[in-house]
C-alpha cells in the first residue's frame, strides 16, 4: 500500500513540476512580449494621430452601452464621465435592468430625462421586456432604457445592441470611469485596419482609493485595504502583461465586459451576446473567432494597452469570492460551449494554443495547485517528503509569483507611470509579496467552487456588488510626489 502511495506521489510530483515549468515559461514569454510591445507602443505614441481621429468627419460613430443593475452610488459619475469623453460622434445608452434602488431616479433628476419613442428592433435575442425609453431633455446624447430584470448582464447588453444607432458598440460597466481619450485610442485599430479589425479591448484598472473629480480620475492612488491593493496588482499583471502578450501573439480570447469595442453588424450577425452564459464577454470573443474562422474571413482582434477604464474592485472577501466564482463558472461555460475548438487546427492559434492554455492553466490551475498542496501534506505524513527540496520549491514558486508582479510594476513605471507617489510603489511591492500568503490559496478555492458550480449548471445571475462610490479627495502636488 505504502509503495503504491509512494509511486503515485512521485508521479504526481513530476506532473506538478512539469506543469509548473510550462506555466511559468509561458508567463515569462508573455511578460517579455508584452514589455517589448508596450515599449514599441510608447515610442510611437507621439505620431499616433489621435487628434486627427477626433477631427475626422469619417471616424466611425460609437454607441456606448452601459448595463446597470442597482448602481445608485456610481451611476451619475459614470455617465457624466462617459458624456464628457473626447470623441466626435457617440451616444451613451444606459440599460437599467430592473434596478430596485434609485439608479434610474438619480439619472432622471440629473439629466432631466423625458420618455421618448425609440424603435428597438428585436435582432439580438432578449428576455426582459423593455418598459420605456428616455432621453436627456438638455440635448446630451444620452438614452436610458428601462427593462424588466432578466438576472443576467447579457440581456441588457443585447437590448442596447438592438437600440444602438452607430456602427461600433462599446460595452462599459456602470461602475467604470473611462480615460478622457479612451474611445479615440480603442477605435484607432478600426481606422488603421478597417477591413480586418472586428473588436478591440482596453486596459482595466482598479479605481478604489484614486482621486476622482467630475467623472475623471485625476490622481490614481493605491486603495487603503490590502484586498483591493492586491487586486490592483492582479489587474496590472493581467491587463498590462497578460492580454498585451496574448494580443501580440494573435491570441486574444477575452475582452473584458468593462471596456470593449465591437463592430455592431458582426455582433448582430452572430446573434448578439449569449443570454445563457455567465462569461458573456469571453464567450462573445470566442464566438467571433469561431464564426470568422469557420467562414475563412480575415480578421483581427486587438488589445490596446494604453487607454484605461477605471473600475471599482470588490472591497470585501465575500463580494470578491462571488465575483471570482462567477468568473470561473463563466470560463468553464465558454470552454464547454466551444470545446470542439480546443486543440482543433482549424481554429489556428486560438484552437491550438489559447483555448488549451485557458483549459489547462486558467480553469484547472487551482485544482492542480490544491492537489499539489495535498500531495505535499500526504508525502509529509508518510515520511516521503524531501523537506529541503519542498521548501526550495515553495520558495521558488512564491518568488516567481512575486517576480511576475514586480515585472508588471516595473513595466508600468517605465511606461505609463500612472501612480506618482513613492508610497504607492512601496505598497505595490508589499502586495506582490503578501498575496502569496493566504490570498492566492483562497483565490484557488473560489475558482474551484466556480468550477463545481459549472458542473451543476445552476444559474448565478448578475451578482451583487457593494459599491463604495468614487472617492473625491484632494490631489497631491504632482511634482513633489514624484
Amino acid at each position: 500500500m505504502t509503495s503504491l502511495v509512494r509511486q503515485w506521489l512521485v508521479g504526481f510530483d513530476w506532473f506538478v513540476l512539469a506543469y509548473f515549468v510550462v506555466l511559468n515559461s509561458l508567463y515569462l514569454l508573455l511578460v517579455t512580449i508584452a514589455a517589448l510591445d508596450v515599449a514599441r507602443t510608447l515610442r510611437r505614441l507621439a505620431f499616433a494621430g489621435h487628434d486627427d481621429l477626433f477631427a475626422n468627419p469619417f471616424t466611425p460613430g460609437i454607441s456606448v452601452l452601459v448595463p446597470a443593475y442597482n448602481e445608485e452610488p456610481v451611476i451619475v459619475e459614470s455617465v457624466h464621465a462617459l458624456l464628457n469623453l473626447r470623441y466626435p460622434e457617440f451616444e451613451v445608452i444606459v440599460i437599467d435592468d430592473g434596478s430596485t434602488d434609485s439608479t434610474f431616479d438619480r439619472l432622471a433628476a440629473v439629466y432631466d430625462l423625458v420618455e421618448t419613442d425609440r424603435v428597438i428592433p428585436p435582432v439580438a435575442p432578449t428576455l426582459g421586456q423593455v418598459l420605456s425609453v428616455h432621453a436627456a431633455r438638455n440635448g446630451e446624447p444620452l438614452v436610458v432604457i428601462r427593462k424588466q430584470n432578466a438576472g443576467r448582464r447579457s440581456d441588457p447588453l443585447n437590448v442596447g445592441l438592438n437600440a444602438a444607432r452607430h456602427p461600433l458598440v462599446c460595452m462599459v460597466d456602470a461602475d467604470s470611469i473611462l480615460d478622457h481619450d479612451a474611445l479615440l485610442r480603442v477605435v484607432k485599430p478600426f481606422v488603421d485596419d478597417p477591413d480586418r479589425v472586428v473588436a478591440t479591448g482596453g486596459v482595466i484598472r482598479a479605481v478604489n482609493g484614486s482621486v476622482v473629480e467630475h467623472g475623471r480620475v485625476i490622481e490614481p492612488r493605491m486603495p487603503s485595504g490590502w484586498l483591493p491593493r492586491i487586486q490592483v496588482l492582479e489587474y496590472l499583471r493581467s491587463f498590462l502583461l497578460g492580454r498585451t502578450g496574448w494580443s501580440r501573439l494573435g491570441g486574444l480570447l477575452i475582452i473584458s465586459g468593462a471596456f470593449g469595442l465591437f463592430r455592431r453588424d458582426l455582433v448582430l450577425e452572430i446573434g448578439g451576446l449569449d443570454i445563457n452564459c455567465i462569461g458573456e464577454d469571453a464567450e462573445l470573443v470566442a464566438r467571433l473567432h469561431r464564426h470568422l474562422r469557420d467562414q475563412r474571413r480575415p480578421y483581427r482582434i486587438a488589445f490596446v494597452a494604453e487607454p484605461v477604464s477605471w473600475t471599482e474592485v470588490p472591497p470585501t472577501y465575500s463580494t470578491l469570492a462571488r465575483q471570482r466564482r462567477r468568473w470561473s463558472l463563466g470560463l468553464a461555460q465558454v470552454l464547454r460551449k466551444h470545446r470542439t475548438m480546443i486543440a482543433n487546427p482549424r481554429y489556428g492559434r486560438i484552437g491550438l494554443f489559447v483555448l488549451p492554455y485557458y483549459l489547462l492553466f486558467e480553469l484547472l490551475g487551482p485544482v492542480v495547485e490544491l492537489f499539489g498542496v495535498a500531495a505535499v501534506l500526504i508525502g509529509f505524513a508518510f515520511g516521503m517528503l524531501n523537506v529541503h527540496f519542498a521548501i526550495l520549491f515553495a520558495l521558488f514558486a512564491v518568488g516567481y509569483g512575486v517576480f511576475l508582479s514586480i515585472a508588471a510594476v516595473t513595466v508600468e513605471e517605465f511606461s505609463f507611470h500612472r501612480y506618482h507617489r513613492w508610497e504607492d510603489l512601496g505598497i505595490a511591492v508589499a502586495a506582490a509579496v503578501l498575496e502569496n500568503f493566504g490570498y492566492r490559496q483562497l483565490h484557488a478555492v473560489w475558482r474551484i467552487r466556480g468550477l463545481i458550480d459549472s458542473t451543476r449548471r445552476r444559474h448565478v445571475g448578475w451578482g451583487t456588488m457593494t459599491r463604495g462610490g468614487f472617492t473625491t479627495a484632494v490631489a497631491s502636488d504632482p511634482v513633489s510626489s514624484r
Partner: protein
Amino acid sequence: MNASVPLLEALTALSGLLAVLAIATTACKVQRALRLRRRRRLEATVRPHVLRVLAEDENPGSADQMNDSLGRTFEELLISLLPKLRGADRDALVAALDNRGVLERARRRTSRPGAVGRARAAQLLGDSGDERALPGLARLLEDRDPDVRTVAARALGKLGPAAVEPLLAAIDAPRPVPAGIVTMALVHAGAGGADDLAQGLDSSRSARVRAVAAELLGQLGVLSATGRLAQTLADDPDPATRRAAARSLGRLGLPEGITPLLAALREAEPSALRIDAARALGRIGGASAVASLRELLVAPDIEVARAGAEGLATCGGTGMSALEGAAEDPVSAPPAREALARLALYGSRRPAVAP
C-alpha cells in the same frame, strides 16, 4: 539533495532578477523626477525666446548662442506649438525652424533606418507645410513600416492639392495605406485638388479609390462633380462606391441628384444603399423626395424605415407634415414617432446618426 541543486541555482537567479527589477524601477522613478525638473528649468529659460519668435522680433542669431540642451529644448517647444497654431504665428515658427536647419534635418531623416525617426520627421514636415518635403513624403507612402506610411499620408494631406494623386495611388500600392487614413488626409488637402479627385471616379481605378473619391467630392463641396456622382450612383458596379456617391449627392444638395437617388430607393437595391439614399434625399428635399420617403416608412427593414423618417424630418414643412400624418398610421407610426421625438428633443442640433 541532487535535485535541489538546480532549484537552488534557479532561486538564486530569481533573487538576482528581482533585485535588478527593484533597482531599475527605483532608478526610473528617480530619473523621471530629475528629468522633469531639468526640463521645466530649460523650458523656463527658452520660453521668452519662443515668445519673441511669435512676436516676430526674434533675431535668428540670438537662439544660436544657446548651448546644445537649451537649443534642443527651444526647437522642441517650437515643434510642439506647430500643430496648435495657424496663420502668421505658424509661419513665424516655421521660419524659425527653417533658419535653425530643423526642417532640412527632418527631410534628411526621412531616409534614415529607424522607423520611429522617419515617422517623426514626416510628422514635423507635415505640420510645417514644407512643400520641399513632398518627394520625400511621397516616397514614405511606400515605406515598409505601416505606421510610417500612415504618418506620411497624414503629412502629405497637409501639403495641399499636389498630394491628391500620390495619396489616391497609395490606396492600391503593394504596401497600401488604409482608405480611411487617405480619406482624412485628403480632407486636409482641400478642394483645390478636385480635378484629380474627380478622375479618381474613372472606371479604370480600383473600387477603393472610386469610393474614396466619391465620398470626398461631396465632403469637400465640389458642386461641379454632381453629374459624375449621379452617374456613379447609377452605374458603378461597387456597392460601397454607390453608397459614397449617394451620401455625397446629399451633401452637395443639388436637384440633379434627386433622380438617381430616387432610383436608389427601389426595393431591389441593397438596404445600406437605400438608407444612404433616403438620408441624402432628405437633405435635398422636394415633393418627389417626400412622396418616396413616405413610402419607405412601411419598409420591412426597420433601418430603412428609420432612414425614411429621418429623411422626412429634414425635408422642411412638407416633410414634417408627411411625418406627422405617418405617425397617426399604425403601420408607419413607429419610425415616424421616433423621428418626431428626436426632433422635439434635439431640433436640428444633432444629426440622427454620424454623416
